[in-house]
């Protein structure tokens, strides 16, 4: 039994291979870009606008509001990274309504790649905001004793990000696949609906967590230990 779309290999040459994960990701990229181009091709700047433009505006402003809600001062700056995380994960989950589709986020490779991107992006944003010294100094807060724990936290949360999304998406697809063999009618549909819901929740969790990590990294005033704040905020969404 195939656990992830990684196993679906279309073409291989040495270690270079074109598996289902990459192909479905390309599909999502194509759909997102084409949709964005189609809608933004004739954007109206006055008071009357098309429904699709309205939808996209709601999505974009909603993401901006969420980023600002986390505590980032200039949400537009992080919109590209965080917004794309959310959209990619959400569209990947929503695509499960299409028969034969397998979400690329059900592959640990994809989620690991996304988690690695977050792992790299957080220090980059932090250094951009506070400088190399300032950012590195945050690892020794509140005391130098916390340095190893902070580093462990940094690594473990990246791992957690990757595994959490992979587990949720993979399990959703897996449950449907198993159920299809047991009760082919009705029940898989209900589970697909549940999978859509968990997919949306996971998209939200993933991007919000990334936002929280970035917010902790770019926080300049050392009143609170950034790691503590991050932990405080991470605990709440993961429970949900």
């Amino acid at each position, binding site marked *: 039994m195939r*656990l*992830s779309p*990684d196993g679906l290999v279309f073409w291989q040459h040495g*270690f*270079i*291979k074109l*598996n289902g*994960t*990459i192909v479905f*990701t*390309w599909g*999502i*990229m194509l759909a*997102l*870009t084409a949709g*964005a*181009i189609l809608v*933004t091709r004739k*954007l*109206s*700047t*006055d*008071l009357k*606008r098309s429904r699709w*433009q309205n939808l*996209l*505006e709601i999505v*974009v*402003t909603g993401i*901006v509001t969420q980023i600002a809600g986390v505590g980032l001062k200039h949400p*537009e700056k992080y*919109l*590209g*990274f965080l*917004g*794309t*995380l959310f*959209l*990619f994960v959400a569209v990947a989950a929503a695509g499960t309504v299409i028969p034969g589709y397998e979400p*690329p986020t059900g*592959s*640990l*490779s*994809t989620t*690991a*790649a*996304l988690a*690695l*991107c977050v792992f790299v992006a957080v220090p980059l944003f932090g250094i951009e905001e506070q400088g190399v010294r300032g950012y590195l100094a945050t690892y020794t807060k509140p005391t130098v004793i916390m340095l190893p724990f902070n580093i462990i936290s940094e690594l473990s949360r990246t791992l957690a990000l990757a595994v959490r999304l992979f587990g949720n998406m993979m399990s959703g697809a897996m449950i449907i696949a198993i159920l299809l063999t047991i009760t082919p009618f009705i029940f898989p549909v209900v589970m697909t609906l549940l999978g859509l819901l968990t997919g949306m929740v996971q998209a939200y969790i993933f991007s919000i967590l990334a936002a929280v990590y970035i917010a902790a990294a770019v926080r300049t005033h050392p009143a609170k230990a950034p790691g503590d704040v991050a932990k405080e905020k991470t605990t709440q969404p993961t429970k949900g």
Partner: protein
Amino acid sequence: MLLDWFTIAAQALNFLILVWLMKRFLYRPILQAIDTREKLIAKELAEAEAKRAEAKKERDDFQQRNEAFDRQRADLLSKAEAEVKVQRQQWLDAARQAADELTAKRQTALQTDARNLNEAILIRTRQEVFSIARKVLTDLATAKLEERMSEVFTRRLRELPADQKATLGDALKKSAEPAVVRTAFELATGSRAAIQNALNETFSAEIRVRFETAPDLVGGIELTAGGQLAGWNIAEYLADMEKRLAELLSAKAATVAQTMAPSPALKSA
């Protein structure tokens, strides 16, 4: 194998590409559109606010102007009323005065007319009276009357006052020319002789006398000697009487003109 490093790298690259694509085609245009719209809305709101303020200002302006206009109109109206009142009074006064003047003038004209008529009637009457008298006396005067007149003449000559008699006598005696006795009609010889006698007797001298006829005397007789005149004739009476009557009439006309002049009381009425 759950983790495939090539796939991880490819997915990371895919994600970064997607980030760029989304930034390029989704976030930037949408945010720009929203910004533009917000600016537009803010601008329109500001414009609306400005227009409202302008409208309010214009309304206030208009109200003020309206009030000012009302006030001005009331002022003008009251002023015009006062002016009309004054003008009316003036015109009424002027009209009354003109009417008074006209009345006075007409009265004067009437008086003048009446006076003129009176005068004309008087003059005409006088002329008529004298013309009738003259005519009657001319008709009546004959040689007989002349004789009678010569008698009267001789009597009056004899009864002449002493001083007149002396003056006339001197004149008769000193004059180189003969005395002239003028009558309207040819005197009869008897009458001539009587006059000659009367003269001779009165002045106790031989008086040379020449008799002449003068019809304009109407009736009567006169004696001219050395610039002295003595006599008696109707024409003289008539002329004398006419002269006195004319004097009387002119005096009366003057009095009437004085009394008929417009009095101050009449003017102010």
